[in-house]
């Protein structure tokens, strides 16, 4: 993982993306007990371009030059299947911009804050997202004030209250 994070940081420094942050299951791992997951999701803010459609081609070209292989929708970087996900809505953009620095074996990287992770999971709302939200509520140190601000700003407060009623009422 250390080498993978070093490569991602190098891509950032070389300008392949403006900002990045670890999301998904691996980001959750920074806040809750280990859960099974197989890929490393990296949310990226791509450099502005004149093309209407954003393209991940420069990232994949750069990685394939370094002999990293594309398998299904992942690229295997130093033994880890990585998925680069361009930010796709205002919530995810804000989450990446406000990501926090974390260290792994001395390597500095960016990870989504737990409150943003929860909001994204609530928005995505797959079965595994719901499971993870419950774990976040039980195990992570969450700022209730920040979570409320995010949920209000992105129209998710009602969904959150319904979620609590259904799955996490004391």
């Amino acid at each position, binding site marked *: *993982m*250390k*080498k*993978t994070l070093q490569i991602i940081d190098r891509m950032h420094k070389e300008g392949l993306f403006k900002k990045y942050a670890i999301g998904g299951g691996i980001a959750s*791992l*920074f*806040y*809750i*007990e*280990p*859960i*099974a*997951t*197989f*890929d490393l999701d990296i949310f990226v803010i791509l450099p502005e371009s004149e093309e209407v459609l954003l393209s991940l081609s420069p990232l994949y070209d750069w990685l394939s030059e370094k002999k990293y292989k594309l*398998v*299904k*929708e*992942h690229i295997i970087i*130093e*033994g*880890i*299947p990585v*998925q680069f996900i361009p930010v796709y809505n205002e919530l995810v953009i804000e989450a990446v911009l406000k990501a926090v620095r*974390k260290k*792994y*074996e001395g390597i500095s990287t960016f990870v989504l804050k737990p409150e943003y992770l929860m909001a994204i999971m609530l928005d995505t709302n797959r079965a595994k997202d719901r499971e993870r939200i419950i*774990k976040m509520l*039980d*195990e*992570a140190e969450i700022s209730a004030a920040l979570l409320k601000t995010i949920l209000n700003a992105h129209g998710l407060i009602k969904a959150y209250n319904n979620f609590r009623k259904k799955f996490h009422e004391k």
Partner: protein
Amino acid sequence: MKNKPNKVKESAADYAAKIFKAKKDFHKEQAKLPIEEKIKILIELQKIVLKTQKQKPGEGLRQVWKI
């Protein structure tokens, strides 16, 4: 007449509540592990999942991290 020991009997509900609390505390403690330790556990979990669970249709790539 001998005095009977003053035993406090726990109800099944109290006992279960104690177990659930202990489990919750354990999960909270696990959550505090350093990320490096969690990644080691993750790799063991990946091995278990690959041995025990069939891949679901539409599920992405599943392989144990080679790190």
